[in-house]
C-alpha cells in the first residue's frame, strides 16, 4: 500500500469550498462552523471519535442534511437543499454508504445504469459498455446479471462504488464504507478506493481503518465535537499528533499488554 508516490503533486485548483458550516439537530450542535477547502485530485481522510459529526459532515456535502449556517460551494455553486439545481449538483458528488444501498429489485447492471440513463439521459449501450469495463476491473463482470442479494457484502460495496463512478462525479464521498464488512472483505473494497486515488479522483473518506487512512490520505482531518481539531499530512498526524485529544484518539487503535 505504501507505493503511492509522496512526491507527486496532488493539489489542483480548489474544487469544493466549505465555509463555516454549521449543522444543528434541534438544540444539539453537530457541526460547529467547519471550514475546509478541497482541491482537485486531493484525497482527504476524515477521522474522529464516534459522534464527532464525520458522517453528518459528508451528508451535508451532498445536501442530504439541511444546514443551519455557512455554505458549501462546488465550483462556486452553492450546495443546499434549496438549490433548484440540486439534482444536477448531486450528480457531481458521488456518495457511497456504509450499508451499500444497492436497489434490491434491480440486478447489478441495472443498478449501475439507472441513474446514467434516467438522469443523464445517456444511451444505455454506451453506459453499459462503461459499466461492464469497470465491473471487469474489479473482477465482477460475471455478476452483472446477479441481484444484490446474491452478492457478498464486499461485492455489493464494490458495485455501489462503480454505480457512483458511472455518473462521473467530480468528488466522491465514502461514508465508513467498510464498517459493515467482514474483515476479509475490507481489503477488496479498500483496494478499489486506493486505485481511484491513484487515478487522481478527488475524494473525502470517513473511515476507521487507520492503516488505510495513512496510506491513502493527502491530508487527514481530525474531527472532534463538531469542529476540525487537527489537520495535516498523514505522517505528521499519525506520528506526531499536535493535540492531546488526537493522541488519546490514536491510542485507542494501539494495543499493548503489560508483561511481567
Amino acid at each position, binding site marked *: 500500500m505504501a507505493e503511492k508516490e509522496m512526491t507527486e503533486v496532488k493539489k489542483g485548483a480548489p474544487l469544493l469550498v466549505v465555509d463555516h458550516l454549521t449543522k444543528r439537530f434541534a438544540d444539539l450542535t453537530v457541526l460547529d462552523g467547519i471550514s475546509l477547502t478541497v482541491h482537485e485530485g486531493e484525497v482527504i481522510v476524515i477521522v474522529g471519535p464516534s459522534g464527532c459529526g464525520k458522517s453528518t459532515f459528508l451528508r451535508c456535502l451532498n445536501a442530504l442534511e439541511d444546514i443551519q449556517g455557512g455554505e458549501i460551494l462546488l465550483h462556486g455553486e452553492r450546495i443546499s437543499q434549496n438549490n433548484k439545481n440540486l439534482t444536477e449538483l448531486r450528480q457531481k458528488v458521488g456518495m457511497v*454508504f456504509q450499508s451499500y*444501498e444497492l436497489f434490491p*429489485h434491480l440486478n447489478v447492471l441495472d443498478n449501475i445504469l439507472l441513474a446514467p440513463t*434516467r438522469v443523464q439521459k445517456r444511451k444505455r449501450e454506451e453506459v453499459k459498455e462503461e459499466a461492464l469495463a469497470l465491473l471487469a476491473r474489479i473482477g465482477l463482470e460475471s455478476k452483472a446479471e446477479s441481484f444484490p*442479494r446474491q452478492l457478498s457484502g464486499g461485492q455489493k460495496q464494490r458495485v455501489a462504488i462503480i454505480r457512483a463512478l458511472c455518473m462521473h462525479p467530480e468528488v466522491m464521498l465514502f461514508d465508513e464504507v467498510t464498517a459493515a464488512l467482514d474483515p476479509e472483505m475490507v481489503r477488496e473494497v479498500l483496494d478499489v478506493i486506493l486505485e481511484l486515488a491513484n487515478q487522481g479522483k478527488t475524494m473525502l473518506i470517513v473511515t476507521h481503518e487507520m492503516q488505510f487512512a495513512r496510506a491513502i490520505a493527502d491530508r487527514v482531518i481530525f474531527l472532534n465535537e463538531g469542529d476540525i481539531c487537527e489537520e495535516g499530512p498523514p505522517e505528521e498526524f499519525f506520528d506526531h499528533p499536535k493535540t492531546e485529544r488526537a493522541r488519546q484518539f490514536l491510542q485507542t487503535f494501539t494495543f499493548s499488554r503489560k508483561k511481567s
Partner: protein
Amino acid sequence: MLTLQIGVLGILASIAIGIICTMIQYFKVPIARHVVSVYVEISRNTPLLIQLFFIYYGLPKIGIRTNPYACGVAGLAFLGGSYMTEAFRSGIEAVDRVQTESAASLGLSGLQILRYVIFPQALTISFPAFMANVIFLLKETSVFSAISLMDLMFTAKDLIGLYYQTTESLFLLVVFYLLILLPVSVLGSFIERRMRYAGFGS
C-alpha cells in the same frame, strides 16, 4: 355475475383512490394530506352497510340522483380506497430511508426516486396486504342486497323465498362465493411467489 362486476369495478376504483391518497401522503401535500387521513379514519371505522345507506339514501336528499349499481361501486370504492391507501403506505414505509438517500445522491429527482426505487419495492412488500384487501372487498359485496342490488346474497334470499329450500340455497351461496374467491386467492399467492422469486430478500 353482478357481484363480480361491481366487485371488479369497485376494486379498480379503490386501487386508484389508494394510489392517489398514498401519493398525497408521500409528498406531504399540505391540507390534502389531512383530508386523506380524515377520509381513511372515517372509511375504515364505519361498516360498509352504513356507508352504503348513506350513499343510497343520503345522496338523493342533497339532490344527487343515484342508482343501486353506481351506489354499490361507489360504496366499495369508498371503503376499499382507505384499505388500499393503508396497504400501499405500509409498503412505502417499509422501504428504508437510506434507499431514498442513495438514489438522491445519484441525482434522481423526487419523482424518479418514487418511480424507479421506492414504488417497485413497495409494490412487492404491500402485495400480500393488497390481495387480502381484494378478497375482503369481494366478500363485502354480500351486503349489497340491502340496497336492492341483485347480488349473490339477494338471489339466494330470493330463492329461499320462492322454494323454501333454505339449506340448499345457502349451501349454493357458499359454493358460489368460493368459486369466485378461491381462484383470486390462488392467483394472488402465485403472483406473490413470482414477485419474491424475481428479486428480494436482501
